[in-house]
C-alpha cells in the first residue's frame, strides 16, 4: 500500500511487501529499528548522543503548531467565558424589575 504521509524517520528500514513470519526471534520488528534512537512521527531518527541537535523542519513545524494551538486555546477560553458571563448579566439587566420580583434563584447548600 502506498503511504499517504510517510512520517517515519529514515532510520527505520522499510521492505516492500509482506514478509513471511518464522519461528525465530528475528520475526519481530525490532531489527527494522536497529539504527534508531528517536523514532517518533516526523522526528529525524537520530542516534544516541545527539539530543536536542537533530530536529528537522517538519518536527519544528509540528512542535510550533502545538505551541500556537495551546496559546489559542487559552485565548479562546477567556473570550468564550467572558461572552457567556457578560451575556448572562445582560439578560438579567434586561428583565423588568418589580417590587415583587423573587430574588435570583440559588440552589442553596
Amino acid at each position, binding site marked *: 500500500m502506498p503511504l499517504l504521509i510517510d512520517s517515519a524517520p529514515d532510520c527505520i528500514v522499510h521492505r516492500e511487501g509482506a514478509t513471511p513470519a518464522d519461528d525465530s526471534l528475528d520475526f519481530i520488528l525490532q531489527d527494522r529499528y536497529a539504527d534508531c534512537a528517536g523514532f517518533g512521527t516526523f522526528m529525524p531518527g537520530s542516534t544516541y548522543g545527539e539530543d536536542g541537535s537533530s530536529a528537522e523542519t517538519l*518536527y519544528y513545524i509540528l512542535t510550533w503548531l502545538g505551541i500556537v494551538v495551546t496559546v489559542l486555546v487559552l485565548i479562546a477560553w477567556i473570550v468564550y467565558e467572558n461572552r457567556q*458571563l457578560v451575556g448572562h448579566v445582560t439578560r438579567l439587566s434586561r428583565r423588568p424589575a418589580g417590587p415583587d420580583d423573587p430574588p435570583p434563584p*440559588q440552589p*442553596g447548600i
Partner: protein
Amino acid sequence: MLDFVIAQVDNLQDAAPLEGLTRDSIILGEQYYFFTVVLMWLIHVGFMTYEAGVVRRKNVMATAMKNILTIAVVTPTFYYIGWWVYGCNQPGFPPITPNSTDFSVLQCQSGIPWADSFGPNLTNNINLVFFLAFLLFSWTTASIMSGALLERVRLSAYLVLACLLGSVVWILDAAWGWSAGGWMTVRFGFHDSIASGVVHGVAGAFTLGVLFNLGPRIGKYTRDGLARAFRPHDLHRTLLGLMLIFTGFYAFYAACLVISSTAFPGWANIYLSPTTLGTIAMIITFGFAGGFTGGYFASRGDPFWTVSGGLAGVISVSAGADVYAPTLGYLIAMASAAMVVYAGNWIEKKMRVDDVVGAVAVHGVAGFLGVLWVGVFAAGYPTGINNVDSSLWGQLLGIATFLPLGFLTGWFASWVLKKLNLLRVPPEVELEGLDVVEYHQDLYLPEVAVVSERLIEPDGTIVEADAVIAEAHSEVIRR
C-alpha cells in the same frame, strides 16, 4: 535459607553481563517513575473532591471542572515551556554557577520540546517518565492555588494563572533550588529535598498575591470587617479528598528521589545526595501523625483544621525528609501544624484575606517553615554536585528568593487580569452560583432536596444566608 538466596543472587549477577544489569536498572527506574505518576493522580482526585466539598452547593460543578481543566492547560504548557525552564535555567539569571556548566548543558538539551529524547526514543527510557513526574508536581502546584480562589474566580483567569504558576514560576525556582546543579544549591547549599518551599511555599505566596487582587466572596466580611464562615456543603467529602491527597503524597515523595539500583546506596535525593525510600516514607508518616495532633489541639478539635494540620505537618518536614530522624519529624510537624492553624485564622480574620481552603497558611506558611527548619535542625549536610553544606543562611536565602518570586508574579498577573476585568465573575453570577450560569445545571439530581443555605456570623450564631448575601450583593452593586 538466607545464605542460599544470597548465593543464588550472586550466581545470577555473575552470569548477567554488565550491560544487561545497567539496562535492567534503567528500566526499573522507568517503571518506578511510571507508577509514581499513576499514584500521584490521587492527589488531583483528592484536590477535586476536597474542593467540591468545601464550596456551597451552587458551585460544585464549577469547582470540579476547574480542577479537571487544570490538566488540560498545564500539561501542554509544561511540555512546551516548563521542562525547558527547569533544564536550561539552573545556573540562574545571570548565570552564576560556572562549575556546573557541563551538568546544566546536559539537562538543558533534554528539556527542549523538539529534543530527540523528549519523544519516542529507544535509547532514553528515563526522560519522559521523569518529565511526567514533574508534570504531576505542576498540576499539584496549580491545584494548591485553585482552592483558595473558589466561588468567585473566572475559570479562564484561573487557567491562565495555573499555567503561569504550574509551568513557569514553580519550575523556575525548582531549577534554581531543587536540582543538583541549581545555583542556590551549588553555591549556598540550599536544601529542600521534597519541595517544602519549592512547591508549597511558592504556590502559597503566589496564591496570596492573587487573593489580594481577587478580593473576598460576597458576604464573607461584615461592614465592620469581621469574618463570617461559609459552611462547606459536604465536610465529609472534604475530609475524604484530603485523605486521597495524603495517599498520593507518598507517590509524590517517592517521585522526588532518584533511583539508581546498580550504584550504592540505590537512592538519592533530588540533589543526588544519598538517602533511602524508607527514610522519606517514615518522615511522611510521622509528619501526618504530628500534624494531625498539632492541628487538633491548636484548633480545639475542628475537623477541617485537624486534617489540614496533617497536610501542614507533612509539608513542614518535607524539606529535610531525606535526613530527619523520625522523632524530629514528628515534633516539627506537630509544632508547625499548630502554627499553621493560628496563621490561617490570622490571615482570615486580621488580614481579611478570603482563602477558602486555607491554602496560604497550609501550603505557604508550612512550606517556608519547612525550609527554615532545615537550617535550624539539619545544617551541615552536603548538598548538590558541589557538596556545599546546608546552613541556616542558605535556607534564609531560599526563602528570600522564593517568597517574592511567588508573591510578585501572582500579584502582577492577577492585577493585569483584574484591570482587563477578566479576573472575577460578575456579582450577579457569583450570587446565582457558577454552576447554573456556566454549566446550565445544578450538579445534583432533582430528587436531592435543596436546603436553604446558612452561614456563621462572627459571633458564632448560625443564620439563613440568603438575606445576608443579598444585602452584601446590593452593596457591591451600589459600589
